[in-house]
C-alpha cells in the first residue's frame, strides 16, 4: 500500500513542516514582501506600507555604503577563514597524535566555542582597549609597543578576524579531528613501508582523505564569517570610519538598530543572502564532484 505509506510519512513530517514554515519560510517570504515596499517607521509608515516595486533595490545598487560593507565582510571572511583553517588544521594534526594530556588540549581548543558571540565581543572589547585593556598592558610589561587595535582603520579587521579565530578555530579542529580518526591506519603503514613520511604522507594521504571534511569545515566557517555581527556591534560599532561596518551591521542599522527603514533593510538582507548563496555555490560544486568521485 504505497499510497497509505506516503500518507503516513507526510503525517510524520507535518509537525516539522509546520514549525519550519512558521520560523523559516514565513519570515523569509515576509522579508521578501517587505523589500518591495516603502516601510519606514521613522517616517510613520509602521502601519502604512507603500508598494515601491524595485525601488529599494535600485537605491541599494547605488548605495556605496552597502557595497563598502560587503567588501569589508568579504575581507574579514577571507582573513578569518584562512587563519582559522591553518591554525585548526595544525592543531587537529597535533591532537590526532596520541600525546600525553591530549584531552586537556582538546578541551582548551573547544572551550571558546561555549562562549556566545556577544560575550566574546564584550570580553575582547575590554581586553583590546588600548589604554585600559590587559593586552597592551602585557605588551608594555615586555617593553613592546601596544597598537590601537580597534581604533586604527587598517588594523581593525585583522584584529576582529583574530578574535574570531580565538573564538571559532575549535570548530575546524573538531570537524578535522573526526575526519582524521576515520582514515584507516593501514594506509599510513603501507605508505611508510613504501618509504613515505612527513610532508609527503600529509600531502598524498592525509589531505586527500580529509577533503570532504575540509570542505564542510570551510563552508561552515565561511557562512558563519559572512554573517559576522556581534564582534563589530560589541567592540567597534562599525568604526573607525566604517572600517568594520560588516553587512549584517549595515542591515541592522538600516532596520531595528537605528534608522527603522524596514523595507530598505529587508531589501539589503535579500541581496546579501544572494551574495552568500553565490559564495556557497563556489564550495558546493567541488564538494559534489569530490563526493561523487
Amino acid at each position, binding site marked *: 500500500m504505497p499510497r497509505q505509506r506516503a500518507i503516513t510519512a507526510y503525517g510524520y513530517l507535518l509537525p516539522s513542516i509546520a514549525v519550519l514554515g512558521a520560523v523559516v519560510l514565513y519570515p523569509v517570504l515576509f522579508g521578501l514582501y517587505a523589500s518591495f515596499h516603502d516601510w519606514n517607521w521613522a517616517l510613520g509608515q509602521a502601519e502604512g506600507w507603500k508598494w515601491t516595486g524595485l525601488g529599494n533595490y535600485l537605491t541599494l545598487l547605488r548605495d556605496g555604503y552597502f557595497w563598502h560593507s560587503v567588501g569589508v565582510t568579504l575581507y574579514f571572511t577571507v582573513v578569518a577563514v584562512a587563519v582559522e583553517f591553518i591554525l585548526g588544521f595544525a592543531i587537529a594534526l597535533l591532537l590526532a597524535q596520541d600525546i600525553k594530556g591530549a584531552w586537556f588540549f582538546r578541551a582548551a581548543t573547544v572551550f571558546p566555542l561555549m562562549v556566545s558571540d556577544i560575550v566574546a565581543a564584550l570580553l575582547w572589547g575590554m581586553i583590546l582597549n588600548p*589604554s*585600559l585593556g590587559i593586552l597592551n598592558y602585557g605588551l608594555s610589561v615586555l617593553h613592546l609597543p601596544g597598537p590601537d587595535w580597534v581604533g586604527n582603520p587598517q588594523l581593525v579587521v585583522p584584529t576582529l578576524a583574530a578574535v574570531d579565530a580565538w573564538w571559532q578555530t575549535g570548530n575546524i579542529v573538531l570537524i578535522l579531528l573526526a575526519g582524521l580518526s576515520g582514515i584507516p591506519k593501514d594506509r599510513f603503514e603501507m605508505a611508510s613501508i613504501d618509504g613515505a613520511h612527513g610532508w609527503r604522507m600529509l600531502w598524498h594521504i592525509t589531505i586527500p582523505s580529509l577533503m570532504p571534511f575540509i570542505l564542510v569545515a570551510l563552508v561552515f566557517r565561511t557562512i558563519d564569517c559572512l554573517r559576522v555581527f556581534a564582534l563589530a556591534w560589541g567592540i567597534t560599532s562599525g*568604526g573607525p570610519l566604517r572600517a568594520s561596518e560588516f553587512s549584517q551591521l549595515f542591515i541592522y542599522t538600516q532596520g531595528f538598530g537605528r*534608522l*527603522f527603514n524596514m523595507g530598505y533593510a529587508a531589501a539589503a538582507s535579500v541581496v546579501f543572502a544572494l551574495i552568500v548563496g553565490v559564495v556557497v555555490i563556489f564550495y558546493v560544486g567541488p564538494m559534489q564532484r569530490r563526493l561523487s568521485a
Partner: protein
Amino acid sequence: MKMRRFLSVATVALTLSLLVANGVAAAPLPPSKAKINWRQFEGQSITVLMVAHPWQKAVEPLIPQFEKLTGIKVNVVVQAEDLFWDRSQLGMSSPNPPFDVTYLAMGINGLTAYKNGWLEPLDEYLNNPKLTDKNWFEFDDFFPADVAGFRMPKPDQGKVYGIPMAGEVYLNFYRKDLFKQHGIDVRKLKTMDDWLKAVKSLNLDTNKDGKTDIYGATIRGANAGIIDELNAMVADYWGDAPYQTDRFVYFDENWRPRFTDPRIVAAFATWGELMKNSAPGVTSFDWYECTTQFAQGRAATYWADASLFASIFEDPKQSAVVGKVGYAPLPATKNGHNTALFTWGLAIPARSKHKGPAWLFIQWATSQAIDLEVSQKTFASPRKSTWDNPTFKKALPEGLGEAVAASLAVARPSIMYVDAADKVILRMLDALHAIALGTPAEKAMQKLQDEATQIVKEAGLYK
C-alpha cells in the same frame, strides 16, 4: 540691656521663622496629600519598561510605596540602553504592548513613536481633576526646555507625550588635583582656546616610561548616540544666533544644510582635536568607555557630557577620583556661550490596556516629592523646585550645582525633528572620525554637506 535682649529674642524668632519657611520649602507635599483618589485602579497591575540607568536604580526601591498607596502592582522590566531602542519601538508597535509605561528619549526616539501614533497624548490626563491634582503636581515646575522635547510635532507648541524625569545638561568634568599640580587655574580659563591649551599640556607620562598614562581629554567617538553631546559643542560655537528649534542649527528655514558654516566646522574641528587628545581607541568610546577612563583616573578632562555622570564619579564603588572632580560649563567661544540638554521622560503606549494606572504611576514618579528623593542620587532633576531645595543642594558635589545652573541658563534642547535625521547623524559621525584620523576639517565637512544635501533632497525637504 532691654534693647539687647529684645534684639536677641527677635534674632532667634527670625531665625526660627526662616528655618520653618525653609523647612516648608525643603519638604514638598508627599503623594498621599494629593487631592485625587489614588486607589481608583486598585487591583490592576502595570509593567514599566526602564533603561538600566541612575534614575531606574534610584526609583526602583521606592516603588513599593506606590504599590501601597494605590493598590496597583508594578512590574519593572530593565533593559541595557543598547537594547532598549528597538525593544521600546517594537513594544509600542504591538497591538498588545508588553509594557504600560516606558522610558522615552527626547528627540528621534520619541518622534518615531509619535509619527506612528504609538504615544498617548498626556494633556488630557494632566487636565483631568479625577486623575491629576494640578496644584500638587505643578507641571509648570518642570524646566520648559526639558518639556520641549516631549511636545510633538513642534517643540514649542505641540501636545505633551512624555513627562520628564531625568534631565542631563552637557558640561565639562576636570581633575581639580591635576590642574592644581600643573599650575592651571581653572578660573583663568576663559575661552575654548584656553581650555584646549590646558588639555594638550595634560597628556602626562607619570611613570616616565615614555608612554602617556593620563590623557588630556576623554570624549565620545563611537556611535550615533554621540549626537546630543556633539550638539552641545555645536550650540556653543553657534552662539546666540537664532535657529529653527525643530532642526537644531544644522538646517536653515529652507532645509539647506549648514555643515560648511564656519561655526559648525569649528565645533567639529574642536571635537576632532579632543578625540586626538584622548586615549587610543576613542572611535569606539561610548559613554561607558568615557566614564570608565575618567573614573579610573586616565583622563584629565571629560568633555561635553551628561551632568548626571557626576553620580558615577562621586561614588567610591565606581570611581577612583571621588572628591577630585571639578565641574565647569562648556567654555565660551567667540560667538557666545551655549550648550545642549537632553531629557528622558516617561510615556504611555497608546494601545496600553492600563492607561489610568499607568498615568498614576507617572504622576507619582515625577512628582516633586519623589523627584526630590530620587534626584539626590541622580543629580538630574528636571524640576526647578528640586534645584532650589536646600536638601538637594546639600547632596550635590561641590561645584556641580553652579556648573549645572550656569549651563541650564543657556542650554538648548537637543532636538532634530528631521525626516531621515538619523541618516544625517551617521554621516556626522563619519565626519568626526575622518577629522580625528587626520582629514582636514573643511574637507570632511564639505563631504558631509554634500551627503546631507542629498539626504534632505531625497526626503523631499530641500528642493
